[in-house]
């Protein structure tokens, strides 16, 4: 496309033709291209301007357009051109900030606020002094633009400039500054915020900011704001109360003392907010309702708990209410449907069980749990089974076995756990029902586990049947049970499972053989495990590798070395761990080679082995991990170097700290540097 065709295209009445003409400027190098693209930036159609902005930013690499863009920003006729020019400058970034700052003194007064807005898009430290100065100007419009730009750039210096404007005479400037500080999440001292809370205009934003102060001193002011007639203000206060109680656990006690004074009207608002607010507000309103022991809002709080996991702060508030909350929770359970019904029952059972003195006499909760176990909703059955772990009596053994046998899997596990607890209180009742149960189906695994915890010939016979059950999970549970029993007979049963059709069962059998010992206390199945190292299934190979490590068998070292070099990542990882455990004498050479393994989990294991191996070059080898592309490898290397200590480790850590960008790695580097002590 020739420049002439582009020029013609840019004047075409059809938007699409103009847009394509701009696209044709992509990669253009001739001298006319900048002029054409600047013309397109002023097009009446946003789609054309959007393409032009992108291409203008590219062209700026070879042709400086900053002066033209600055003029376009400060002109007052074409708003589209101005916005597009600001967008281009934003794409050019902090490198052009100096030139924009210089232009502030030369552009017409009416255009300065737009240039200030452009500085906010451009960003960078160089823009901050000029913006801070503009924020103190007498021109309210310029101040508003500067405050917004400072908030866009963010950072400590911007926050300082914004805080300075909190004392401005104009209320709207104070609001803009406070809003800017809110946008960047700045922490403002309580003393500075307290006077702002009383200002009607600033109240909501000030309340939000109080939530970041991490001081319990803010609690009374926030509690008082709960009485505000505006639900929005109440919501902001509630969300901030939650944030403070989460960050400063002692604040919960301060709020609990205050919460009893919350008026009926405010409680009703809080109830609506638990139901309808955004998540931080819902949590805050739930927290206050719980600390006020407000039974009227409990339904809403339980509904929230059913939708979201109960965070630790809310859990603490429930526990603080304690056993007294059980009757209203049971009412909520009766009145709710679905998951809420299950959660209310489970909460009631947990809080009732927290009081050891009365739980075995609590027929009300026990009856509710027994009813729950027969409920058509599986979630309620699971909740009931979990609760019965604390409240079941001998009479419940049959119910729980029936529930476990019927499944589904989650209910079977919960019922199995309840039976385990019940066995401590009523062993005969549990053994009696287990002796009759068939070990298969949905509850097979959970019940097999229980049978395996019993001793005696009857249990052995049942487990021998379970190891041939239809469900592989039951067969695995039987294998694990045989490990607990131990001895030659158990080992014989498990050995056959290495030929099971399920990979998981084979892996469980390999793992079990590593744990099992014959009647003389010697390892068993070593030949089979060595053979299993050649399995085509990586999971089985990995299990055999770890099992051989448990046996201490030195013949495994050679094949494990091969697997470390050639095996799939999971197998290499297990082989590395096994070689460490077997104290392979040639491990040092292998480690250097394995540091270059493609899988980061393997490399982390190698680093741990290096740290264990000692030697003069240990720190320098661990330091290799600090430049690994995976953040988790670098973090592990930092942790290990911190433990090793010494000047070489310290130097490597400090060097990495200079350039590390990942927050978790940086945190580990700091901790490691601290651990290694002063330079």
């Amino acid at each position: 496309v020739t420049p002439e065709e582009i020029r013609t295209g840019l004047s075409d009445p059809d938007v699409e033709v103009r847009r394509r003409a701009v696209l044709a400027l992509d990669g253009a190098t001739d001298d006319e291209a900048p002029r054409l693209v600047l013309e397109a930036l002023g097009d009446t159609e946003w789609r054309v301007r959007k393409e032009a902005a992108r291409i203008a930013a590219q062209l700026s690499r070879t042709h400086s357009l900053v002066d033209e863009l600055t003029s376009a920003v400060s002109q007052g006729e074409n708003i589209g051109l101005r916005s597009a020019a600001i967008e281009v400058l934003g794409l050019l970034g902090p490198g052009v900030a100096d030139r924009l700052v210089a232009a502030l003194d030369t552009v017409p007064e009416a255009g300065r606020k737009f240039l200030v807005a452009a500085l906010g898009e451009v960003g960078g430290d160089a823009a901050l002094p000029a913006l801070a100065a503009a924020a103190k100007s007498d021109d309210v419009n310029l101040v508003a633009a500067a405050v917004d730009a400072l908030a866009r750039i963010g950072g400590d210096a911007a926050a300082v400039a914004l805080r300075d404007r909190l004392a401005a005479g104009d209320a709207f400037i104070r609001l803009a500054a406070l809003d800017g500080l809110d946008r960047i999440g700045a922490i403002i001292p309580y003393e500075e915020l307290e006077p702002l809370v009383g200002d009607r205009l600033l109240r909501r934003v000030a309340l939000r900011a109080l939530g970041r102060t991490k001081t319990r001193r803010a609690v009374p002011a926030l509690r008082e704001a709960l009485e505000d007639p505006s639900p929005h203000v109440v919501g902001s206060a509630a969300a901030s109360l939650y944030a403070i109680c989460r960050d400063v656990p002692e604040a919960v006690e301060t709020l609990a003392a205050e919460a009893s004074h919350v008026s009926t009207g405010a409680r009703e608002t809080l109830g609506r907010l638990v139901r309808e607010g955004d998540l931080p507000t819902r949590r805050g309103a739930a927290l206050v309702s719980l600390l006020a022991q407000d039974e009227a809002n409990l339904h809403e709080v339980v509904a929230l708990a059913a939708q979201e996991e109960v965070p630790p702060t809310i859990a603490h508030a429930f526990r603080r209410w304690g056993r007294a909350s059980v009757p209203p929770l049971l009412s909520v359970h009766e009145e709710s449907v679905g998951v809420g019904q299950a959660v209310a029952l489970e909460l009631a059972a947990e809080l009732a069980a927290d009081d050891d003195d009365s739980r075995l006499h609590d027929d009300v909760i026990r009856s509710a749990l027994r009813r729950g176990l027969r409920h058509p909703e599986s979630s309620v059955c699971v909740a009931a089974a979990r609760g019965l772990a604390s409240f079941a009596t001998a009479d419940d053994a049959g119910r729980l076995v029936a529930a476990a046998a019927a499944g589904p899997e989650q209910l079977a596990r919960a019922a199995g756990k309840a039976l385990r607890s019940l066995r401590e209180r009523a062993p005969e009742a549990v053994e009696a029902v287990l002796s009759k149960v068939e070990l298969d189906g949905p509850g097979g695994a959970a019940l097999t586990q229980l049978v395996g915890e019993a001793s005696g010939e009857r249990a052995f016979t049942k487990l021998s049947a379970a190891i041939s059950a239809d469900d592989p999970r039951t067969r695995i549970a039987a294998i694990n049970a045989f490990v607990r029993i131990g001895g030659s007979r158990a080992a014989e049963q498990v050995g056959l499972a290495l030929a099971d059709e399920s990979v998981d069962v084979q892996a469980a059998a390999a793992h079990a053989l590593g744990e099992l010992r014959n009647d003389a206390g010697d390892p068993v199945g070593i030949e089979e495990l060595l053979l299993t190292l050649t399995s085509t299934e990586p999971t089985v190979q990995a299990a055999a590798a770890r099992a051989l490590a448990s046996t201490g068998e030195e013949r495994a070292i050679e094949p494990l070395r091969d697997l470390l070099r050639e095996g799939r990542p999971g197998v290499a990882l297990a082989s590395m761990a096994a070689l460490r455990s077997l104290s392979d004498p040639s491990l040092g050479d292998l480690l250097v080679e394995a540091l270059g393994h493609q899988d980061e989990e393997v490399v982390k294991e190698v680093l741990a082995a290096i740290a264990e191996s000692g030697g003069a070059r240990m720190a320098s080898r661990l330091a290799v991990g600090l430049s690994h592309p995976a953040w988790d490898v670098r973090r592990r290397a930092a942790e290990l170097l911190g433990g090793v200590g010494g000047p070489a480790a310290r130097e490597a850590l400090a060097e990495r700290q200079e350039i590390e960008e990942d927050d978790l790695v940086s945190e580990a580097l700091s901790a490691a540097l601290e651990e290694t002590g002063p330079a």
Partner: protein
Amino acid sequence: VSVLFDSGPRLRIEEFRLLRDLINKFCGISFAPESRFVLERRLKDRLEALDLSDFGQYYQYLRYHPQRFAEIERAVECLTTNETYFFREDYQLWALRDQILPEIHERKGKREGRRRLSVWSAGCSTGEEVYTIAMIIEGSGLFEGWDVRVFGNDIARNVLQTARRAIYGPSSFRAMPRSYEHYLVETPEGRQVHPRIRAMCHFGHLNLLEGQRAAIVGRVDVILCRNVLIYFDSESRSNVIETFYERLGAGGYLLLGHSESLLNTSTSFELVHLDRDLVYRRATEASAETESDE
């Protein structure tokens, strides 16, 4: 696994990030740092099921085990499944019944030959929404003689088994209008959706991030994707929206959850103000080739 009391293994910060990133790579779902306790609580059940003692082992299971893909689906199911029920958020369903379906009937009904209505419930969980839509279509009486298909997909296979079985407990019917109850039949295990409605519904296992695989859904008239996009990061959300755009025929509708919008996502959808709802629509003047694979 306790609701209130901390017990069992803790999810360390680095394990949280590894698991979070693995899940995000798999299906685009993202978790903010403050969700750590949510992952810890919900995945503890999976650790228990797999007899694993800590989250590091669980991460390695998800990386190396032959069943890793099935397990990551289960993890996603644990982390995202919202309780669903028939006629949930019904104001939007009435917008479908009163304005969207009649408009489609009017527009497509004039065509010669085979007439077809296709609706996609994206992220359908246990299927209540799919059957609800089918009941509304059947109940409207507008589409007799049409080929009607309601397709539901989910990333978790377990929920699809429940969906196909179509038998539900009482809580699934908490918002069911009486006028639709004749679409249910009593069974010893619970109430089941009537075979006539079930015949309109199809289910599939589909990861919404796999845009190309979504072609199996074909061209559709309406997509309902409610309370699903909230779990995605912005990039994945954009990709999924793009897939929806491609799958919708000209004039097709996209209905999102009440707390979801395309405000921060650049899209070609136009916003349509209905009496009861705001919905998104693929422009009717969109190219004719979009209809070609109907």
